[in-house]
């Protein structure tokens, strides 16, 4: 008995593999809920509760915005073979850049565009650094981008506790409130800052076109599919990787600006700016299978999980870490199902 590759699995088999793994993930998650001391059914209900009312849906929407921007960029980066795990840090860099413009430059109609520009730029610098270290020195980008997350984390903590600490706030660790010129408009009473949402949708569409309708996209896809072939064709692999990394970092930076200018209206502790968007967006991109357009569907799905995690936290005072558990299990079941469906069991040696 042994495993063999199944080059063309039937749809039925793919469906079965995914159902099996999703069921296993739900089972394991339920077990964890039981061990924690809550009824799994109640926990699952809460996880899906944001779907029930318009307030919940707005919460999902608000969390979808950064996931859209980051996910679209990561879908591109993964496709090209740049494994950017540092979107979390790039988002925080974006928040820092946005906050700098909002707090220290004279306000005016140029403030918001400038915030997005500087925030995105800093995000791009941050991911570009990892790409450069990989291209120039061969440093594994999974580890460097991950370490960079910690670096910005401490940078933000330093800024809000030290030099950028607000004049008007006393016991709290955050900056002063942004001036009105640096605040993004929202939809009604919700926290959905729609300009960033539009940027996210535009990013998904734009990257899809770039990847599938331009010569540059063609080169990117060759490089991601088969680096050796790319070398024989004389493609400049280093430059292609750097460009994809810069783009994904830029989009993550934009997401960071959106969070501080659209929701918090100030720079504050890093754990409050990003609720693990960087890691969750990896799932968004992985689910989208290297197609930036598909992010339009996968980002709301993960937005729902983040909103549900918040509901669990509020209702059962469960640590927000529960989102990590859900994300980890989902990612595992995804790659497991993918691998299982591409294989078949042969009853002979």
């Amino acid at each position, binding site marked *: 008995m042994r*495993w063999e590759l199944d080059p063309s699995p039937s749809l039925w088999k793919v469906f079965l593999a995914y159902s099996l793994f999703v069921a296993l993930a739900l089972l394991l998650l339920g077990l964890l809920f039981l061990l924690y001391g809550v009824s799994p059914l109640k926990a699952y209900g809460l996880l899906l509760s944001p779907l029930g009312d318009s307030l919940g849906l707005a919460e999902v929407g608000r969390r979808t915005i950064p996931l859209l921007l980051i996910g679209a960029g990561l879908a591109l980066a993964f496709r090209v073979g740049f494994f950017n795990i540092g979107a979390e840090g790039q988002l925080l860099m974006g928040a820092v850049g946005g906050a700098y413009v909002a707090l220290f430059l004279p306000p005016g109609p140029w403030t918001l565009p400038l915030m997005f520009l500087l925030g995105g730029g800093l995000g791009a610098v941050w991911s570009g650094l990892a790409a450069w*270290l990989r291209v120039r020195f061969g440093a594994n980008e*999974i580890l460097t981008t991950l370490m*960079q997350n910690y670096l910005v984390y401490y940078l933000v903590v330093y800024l809000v506790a030290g030099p950028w600490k607000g004049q008007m706030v006393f016991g709290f660790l955050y900056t002063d409130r942004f001036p009105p010129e640096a605040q993004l408009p929202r939809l009604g009473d919700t926290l959905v800052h729609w300009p960033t949402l539009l940027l996210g949708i535009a990013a998904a569409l734009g990257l899809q076109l770039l990847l599938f309708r331009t010569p540059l996209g063609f080169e990117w896809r060759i490089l991601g599919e088969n680096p050796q072939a790319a070398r024989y064709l004389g493609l400049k692999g280093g430059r292609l990787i750097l460009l994809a990394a810069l783009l994904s970092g830029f989009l993550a930076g934009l997401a960071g600006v959106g969070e501080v200018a659209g929701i918090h209206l100030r720079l504050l502790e890093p754990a409050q700016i990003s609720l693990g968007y960087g890691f969750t967006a990896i799932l968004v991109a992985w689910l989208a299978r290297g197609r930036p357009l598909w992010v339009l569907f996968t980002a709301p799905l993960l937005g729902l999980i983040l909103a549900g995690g918040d509901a669990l936290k509020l209702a059962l005072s469960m640590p927000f870490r529960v989102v990590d558990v859900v994300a*980890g*299990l989902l*990612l595992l079941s995804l790659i497991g199902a993918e691998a299982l469906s591409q294989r078949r069991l042969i009853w002979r040696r």
Partner: protein
Amino acid sequence: MEEALLRAVLFGTPILLASLGALLSERGGVVNLGVEGMMALSALAAFAAALEAGPVWGVLCGVGVGSLLGLFLGVFAVFLRANQFVAGLALAALGLGASGLLGKRYEGTPLPDPLPEGVLAGLALILALGLHLLLSRTRYGLYLRSVGENPKAADLFGVSVDGVRYLALALGGGMIGLAGAYLSLAYRPSWTDGMTSGLGWVAIALVILAGWQPLRAVLGAYFFGLLFFLQFRLQGSVPIPSEAFAAMPYLLVILVLALSGRARAPRALGQPFDRGR
């Protein structure tokens, strides 16, 4: 001076143990990026068991949970031949999340009878030596290295590639579990969410820095330990913000990766083995 060296060894021990565990499976061709989560979950398991049944059971439980998590990674990395990097990252998130969730009731509980750090530090040194001998002098070590370099050839010679890899993941997982147990039973006898504080990632980088050699990992781990010691010692006495000190290990990992990025890894590292291909 003597104190500095002692503290360096004690700080370096969890890094050493975890990186030996990662090194073992990487020599067999399986990347383990789940170290951080595996350490967190086994630290919690060790702490809970030690509260119930004493420190010896705590250590055993930590090692056992580490081994099981190694095999869990094996289900994806070896059995299903899924993407090892993604599987490891997912395991890291799962382990950190699950330990934060399940450990909530243990936060703030002190451990009545902690383990002496020195014993485990000595054990880590012996394990490093043992791993060196295992890799260079034993049949299993030969199999493991051949599986990591050229699984196809090893398979042709009748070595069970999957079997060797499972064993490496279980043994390595046990060492990572021991690193977790050291944290929660000896180093800081308590449980707090996030107590691994990035040590798992440092351990992974150390494997690369050490060129996949256990004895070099010893030196590297103690070097990191010395830096951690200096960080604690200098904090507050020099006009540098404490956040800069806290960020230092991560900066160091990046530097290490840049300096040793082109070190020669086991040739089949990260590649699932498929007999049919």
